[in-house]
Structures are given as structure tokens and as C-alpha cells.
């Protein structure tokens, strides 16, 4: 294991950087889309409700691998475009995670007591103003732990980039494993890098959750 670390550390660090960057970018974009879909869901407009509902129902029930491969192989075949593995992977991650984040944010919005919306309306704010000033800030606070957990999941899920030459930890892990024949060592080293990101986050989220429970 040590040998793999010392011999391949620059590759590993690059891969680690890619995994981290892809995860963070995908998370931010999914958060944006997810929030929009969540607002669609709680709005009174039936069409928007439907869009949000169908999206979530559709993409949370299809494996990420299938979504990603679809964008990497099937779409370029039909449209005659070139998408590199990192981008196809990120698109897959965003499409997939958005469905989960939409649900999380929606639950958050619905967890804000109805009285808050009413209080906002009662003091003359419009629906969207109330959402912006009063409901969303509280909803996001409520959903910090599940969002954090979703990010952890997303980091782990980013390992499907290994299937599409996404230059991430999993991809290089496979290559190093194939080259050194030290499968156990290579994959454990790779696991370690994932754990460096996810385990502390895991504890941080648990901590925040406990603190919020006490408040």
C-alpha cells in the first residue's frame, strides 16, 4: 500500500482533485436545480407541480450508471457530439442528484411551519417575497444535514466516472490496480482517499444534526 502511495502519489492527487472538484460542482448545480424544482413542487401552479413530480419520479428510479452511460455513449452516437467522461459523469451526477435534492429541499420547505408563510403574508409580503425572506432561509437550515448527506452520497457516487474514463479516483484506481496487480493495495488506497472526504463530513453532519435537535 505504501508503495502504491509513494509511486503513484501525483496521479492519485490529481485524481483526488478531480473527484473533489466534480463532486462540488455537481453538488452546487444540483442544489440550484433541485431548489427550483422544489419551489415548483410547493407552488400552486399545477403545471409546475407536474414538471417537478415527473422529473423526480423519473430520475430517482434509474441507476446513475445507466444515466451516465447514456450521456457518454448513447447521446454522442445520436447527436454526433463529443463529451468527455468527466463532463458526461458530471451531467449524470447532476441529473441524478437533482431529483434527490429536490425532494430534500421540498421536505425542508414543508417542514417550515405553515404559520411562517402565514405570518409573512399577513404582514403584506407577496408569496414569493415570503418564500425568499422567510421560508427558504429556514428551510435551508433544516435541510443542512440531509443535504450534507446527499453530498457524501454524491462523492461516493462519483465513482461511476471510472466507467467512462472520467479521470477520477476510481478510474485511476483501476488503472493502478491493473498495472501493479496489487488489487487490494490499490483499491484500499483509493478507498482511503474517499474516506478522507466523506468520513469527516459524515461526523460533521451528525454533529450538526445533534445540535439542531437540541435547539
Amino acid at each position, binding site marked *: 500500500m505504501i508503495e502504491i502511495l509513494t509511486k503513484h502519489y501525483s496521479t492519485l492527487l490529481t485524481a483526488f482533485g478531480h473527484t473533489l472538484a466534480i463532486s462540488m460542482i455537481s453538488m452546487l448545480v444540483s442544489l440550484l436545480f433541485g431548489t427550483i424544482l422544489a419551489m415548483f413542487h410547493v407552488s400552486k401552479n399545477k403545471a409546475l407541480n407536474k414538471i417537478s413530480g415527473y422529473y423526480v419520479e423519473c430520475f430517482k428510479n434509474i441507476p446513475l450508471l445507466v444515466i451516465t452511460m447514456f450521456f*457518454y*455513449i*448513447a447521446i*454522442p*452516437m445520436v447527436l*454526433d*457530439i*463529443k*463529451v*468527455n*467522461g468527466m463532463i458526461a459523469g458530471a451531467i449524470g451526477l447532476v441529473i441524478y442528484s437533482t431529483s434527490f435534492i429536490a425532494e430534500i429541499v421540498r421536505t425542508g420547505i414543508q417542514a417550515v411551519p405553515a404559520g411562517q408563510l402565514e405570518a409573512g403574508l399577513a404582514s403584506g409580503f407577496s408569496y414569493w417575497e415570503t418564500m425568499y425572506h422567510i421560508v427558504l432561509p429556514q428551510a435551508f437550515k433544516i435541510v443542512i444535514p440531509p443535504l450534507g448527506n446527499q453530498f457524501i452520497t454524491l462523492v461516493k457516487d462519483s465513482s461511476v466516472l471510472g*466507467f*467512462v*474514463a472520467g479521470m477520477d479516483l476510481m*478510474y485511476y484506481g*483501476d*488503472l493502478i490496480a*491493473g*498495472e501493479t*496487480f496489487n*488489487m487490494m493495495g490499490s483499491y484500499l488506497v483509493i478507498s482511503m482517499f474517499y474516506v478522507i472526504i466523506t468520513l469527516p463530513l459524515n461526523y460533521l453532519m451528525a454533529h450538526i444534526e445533534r445540535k439542531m435537535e437540541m435547539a
Partner: protein
Amino acid sequence: SEKSVMERIESGDKKIVWATNVTTPLVGQLNVETGKVAGYDSDVARALTEVITGSAENAIFVEVSSQNRVAFVKNNIADAVISTMTITDEREKQVDFTDSYYIGGQALIVPEDSDIQAIEDLTADTIVAGAKGTTMMLNMKTIAPQAPTREYDTESEAFTTLIAGQADAYTSDNVVLMGMMSKTSGFRFAGGRITDEPYGIALNEDEDEFREELNEAIAIIRENGTLAEIEEKWFGDYY
């Protein structure tokens, strides 16, 4: 504790389990309707099985990809791997090989309208696809280090990405590439073969007796012309 392959065969259980690639036309492809694997490698395996056990019917096939070939013998899932597997020193440290039964060679294919005519035309802007865990990808580091590579779990996945336009070229064994092109038009070789790839049958390290038996069998089918017949049957039209 487990019986060696020869002990098992001698005790009457004559089945030999061969691991082979099933997504490479000509070399080895699964017919999903019959469940039979057809191709050069599997025919060789059948011939060897016949020599050793008396019947080609004793050959059983399981599906591998380039990436998990070594694991198949190490995990005792198969008795032997026959899958255009190049004999290399590195691999010898993990598994044992029989004598070589065929010498293939690395080559490169590109879309017909590509500007790439030979390996020398590869640049930092031309992406080369290949399968994870193949000698080709290692070779690339010395023969065309400037060209970026993208590696996939199987040969067919690598070829599919070439079709999808995700790569500019795809490198593998010439026979594998021939197989791919036999099914899909629009691609051509870019230059000739680049390396020699002697294929051996990979076995677990404690299977000396089985290896001897296989080596003898290989010699037999080479001498009696069976090997040449099989080669002609699968590759004859494409050379």
C-alpha cells in the same frame, strides 16, 4: 485442499471451465440465443479439451473482460483463461502461462475518414481508447506517449466509445480489431501491427500438471493442423 484440475479430471469430472472474452467478434462472442460462445479462442479451447478429456463437449465457458481475467483464475472461477492474453513477465508473477498458441500483435483502428494513417500520426490532441488492464495501454506509454488514452472496462466498451466519436482511435490486438470491424463498417487500420503479442493460456500457479497437459495438447493440435484450421476458419477472410 481443493483438488487440482488434473486430479479432478482423472477422478471422472471431466469438465474444464474456460474463461473467455464474449464481446469480441471472431475471437470470442456469446450467442445469446444458444448460450454458446463462438470464436477463435473458444474453438482452441474446445480442441484442447477434446485432446485432454476425449470430448470437446467438456469445455465450459464463462465470460470475462480484459480487466478481470487474472481474477478469474485467482478466484478459481475458471480453470484457465483463454482470451487473447499476452504472456508478460509481470503477469507471470500472478499466474502461470502455457506455451504460446498464437502470436497476435497490437494495432490501431480509426474512422475511415480520419487523418491518422499510422501510429506516428497520434498527437496530444488525438484520444486513444482501449481496454483497462491490457498490454496495449502499457505499450502506449512507450510507443506513443504523447497521445492521451482513455481506458474502459471491456474491449467492446472501448470500441463503442470510438463509434460514439468519443475517441479518435482505438488500440487493441489486431485480431480483436478485425473482429470489431467485421461487424461494424466505417473503420480501418491505421498502419500495421506494432508489437508481437504471444497469447498464452493463464492458469493458477499450482497447476503444473495441468499446464504440462495443455502444452502437450497445444503441440498436438498444432501438429495435426487443427490450430491452423481454426485460424483459417475465423481469421482467414480478414488477412
